[in-house]
Each structure stands twice: as structure tokens, then as C-alpha cells.
């Protein structure tokens, strides 16, 4: 990668560090949900898609079974398949490099990569790989820090950890609420999940909310 533009480096690094810090919140949430430090680190190393990781441990914390947790995490990561679709023609890699590109295909690497389009194809590739590697590094380091921190503090409620998790979800949701209709969809999903909570088996109210997405996306609104 000769002569990566300075602004590409700057974008990649600043996104990596900010998002990586979020890993501490995941590490803490995962330990508070009953996962060991080792399991928590494996989730960040192997799953490596933040919202799905938070969802998996969140469903377990809400009393849901393993299958519900895995299914919710999988649904939440379905957007990564669309990111892969957009990135793959820019990357042009095969074999193990393609597998690594897939593992690093997340919101941040895709967005920084595609944001470099005006600077040319090399900058797109550099933006994707630098952001993927940077977020992977910082996300995993801070996951470990958060997990060890949470392990040493005992009662999660006394330290506000039980509110840090929904706050983290809110932080992931906020930038997606761009238009009025999407805001309504989010509110409907919140109401649906709360109404469903006393009726459905524990942990399944969250995944059942997908029905709201199907309703919202069924007709073309544009």
C-alpha cells in the first residue's frame, strides 16, 4: 500500500480508537451477564461484530436460552452480508485474505472504506483494511480490560453496569434514527418488546420484534 493518504490514516485511527473503547463496555456487560473473562474475549476475537455480541450476552442476561441468543445475534449481523457485497469488488482478494476481509467486514471498516471513494481505489482498500485491523486490535484489548474490570467489582447494579448495557444499545441505535419513519419504527419495536415480555418465554421478546421490521420494510415507501 504505497502512499496511503494522510486523511485515510486519520479516519481509520480515530474510528478504531473510539469504537475500540466501546469494547470495554462489552467486556463488562458480558461478565455481568455470567460469561467468563475467557469466553468474553473469545466473543470479541471470533464474533467481532459489536451489536451482535452485546445482543448475545443481553439475551442471556434477560434469561433467554442459547438458541435465542445466537439467533438474535445472527439477525443483528445480517447487515454485514450486505457490507461484504459492497466491499468485495473493491478488495479483489481470494483465499485466506478473503476470509480475513470477511471477519473484518463491520460497520466501521465498510463505512471508512467507502468514504475514501473520492480518493481512489487504493484509498478505499487502505481505509477498509486499516480500520478493520485497528478496530480489531482496540476492540479486543478493551474487551479484556472491561471484562477484568467488571470481574473485580462484584454487584453490577451498584456500579451502574446494568444501565451501561442498554445505554450502549441506545448509542448504537441513535445514529440510525435519521428520519421520522425510522424513529417511529424504533418506538414501535420498544413498545412491542415490552408488551411481549410478560407473554413470551424469557429472552424471546427481543427476537420476536423482527416482525416489526418485516411490517416496516414490506412496502416500498419511496
Amino acid at each position, binding site marked *: 500500500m504505497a502512499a496511503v493518504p494522510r486523511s485515510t490514516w486519520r479516519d481509520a485511527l480515530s474510528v478504531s480508537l*473510539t469504537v475500540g*473503547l*466501546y469494547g*470495554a*463496555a462489552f467486556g463488562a456487560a458480558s461478565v455481568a451477564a455470567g460469561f467468563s473473562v475467557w*469466553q468474553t474475549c*473469545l466473543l470479541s476475537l471470533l*464474533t467481532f461484530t459489536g*451489536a*451482535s455480541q*452485546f*445482543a*448475545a450476552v443481553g439475551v442471556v442476561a*434477560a*434469561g433467554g*436460552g*442459547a438458541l435465542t441468543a*445466537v439467533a*438474535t*445475534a*445472527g*439477525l*443483528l*449481523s445480517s*447487515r*454485514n*452480508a*450486505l457490507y461484504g*457485497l459492497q466491499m*468485495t469488488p473493491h478488495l479483489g482478494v481470494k483465499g485466506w485474505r478473503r476470509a480475513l476481509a*470477511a471477519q473484518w*467486514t463491520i460497520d466501521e471498516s465498510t463505512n471508512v472504506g467507502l468514504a475514501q471513494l473520492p480518493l481512489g481505489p487504493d484509498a478505499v482498500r487502505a481505509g477498509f483494511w486499516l480500520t478493520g485491523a485497528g478496530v480489531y486490535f482496540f476492540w479486543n484489548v478493551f474487551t479484556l480490560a472491561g471484562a477484568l474490570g467488571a470481574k473485580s467489582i462484584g454487584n453490577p*447494579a451498584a456500579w*451502574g453496569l446494568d*444501565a451501561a448495557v*442498554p*445505554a*450502549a*444499545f*441506545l*448509542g448504537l*441505535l441513535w445514529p*440510525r434514527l435519521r428520519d421520522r419513519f425510522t424513529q417511529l*419504527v424504533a418506538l*414501535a*419495536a420498544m413498545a*412491542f*418488546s*415490552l408488551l411481549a*415480555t*410478560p407473554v413470551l418465554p*424469557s429472552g424471546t421478546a427481543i427476537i420476536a*420484534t*423482527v416482525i*416489526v*421490521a418485516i411490517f*416496516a*420494510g*414490506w412496502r*416500498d415507501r419511496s
Partner: protein
Amino acid sequence: MTATWYVVVGTSVLCFLIKYVGHVVPAHWLSRPRVQRINAYVPVVLLGALVAVQTAASKTHLAVDHRLVGILVAAAALKLRAPFPVVVFLAALASALAYHLS
């Protein structure tokens, strides 16, 4: 294996496969308009549900407690464009205060 191990292994395998699929399947498979529209709303509804359930539910019943204080502070911080780590920290701080005061 315990349930948490099933979650770790299952989530990791499934999420990798989903990412990999995007890099290898023919583009038109995933680009049907209805699939794309629904897919765009899936993160919005699931994250919304997770916010609501983690804030106001306790197993299978609803509960209003210190966590609600934390989430309201988080919403205010997001409205003021605070960076993510600050949002999470303020929410934890507010919730912990409410927990100790109540």
C-alpha cells in the same frame, strides 16, 4: 458444555458465516428490494427492543428502577452529541447513584 459456551461458539460461527456469505454469493441474491428494506430495519427494531427490555424488564416482568435514570441520562447525552464512551459512562454513573439513593 454450558449454555454460555454454546452462545460463544454458535454466535461466532454464525456471524462469521453471514459476513463470508456477503463476499462470495452473487450480488443479485441479496439485492432484492424487499430483502434490503427489511434488512435495513432489522438493526433498528432489535436495538430498540434491546434498549427497552434491558431498561424496563426483569426476566419476564416489567420493572421501573434505577436503570431508567441511567438510560434517560444516556439519551440526553446522545442528544448533546457526547461521544459513545462518555454516554455509557454517564449512564452507569447516574444509574449507580439512583441505585444507592433508592
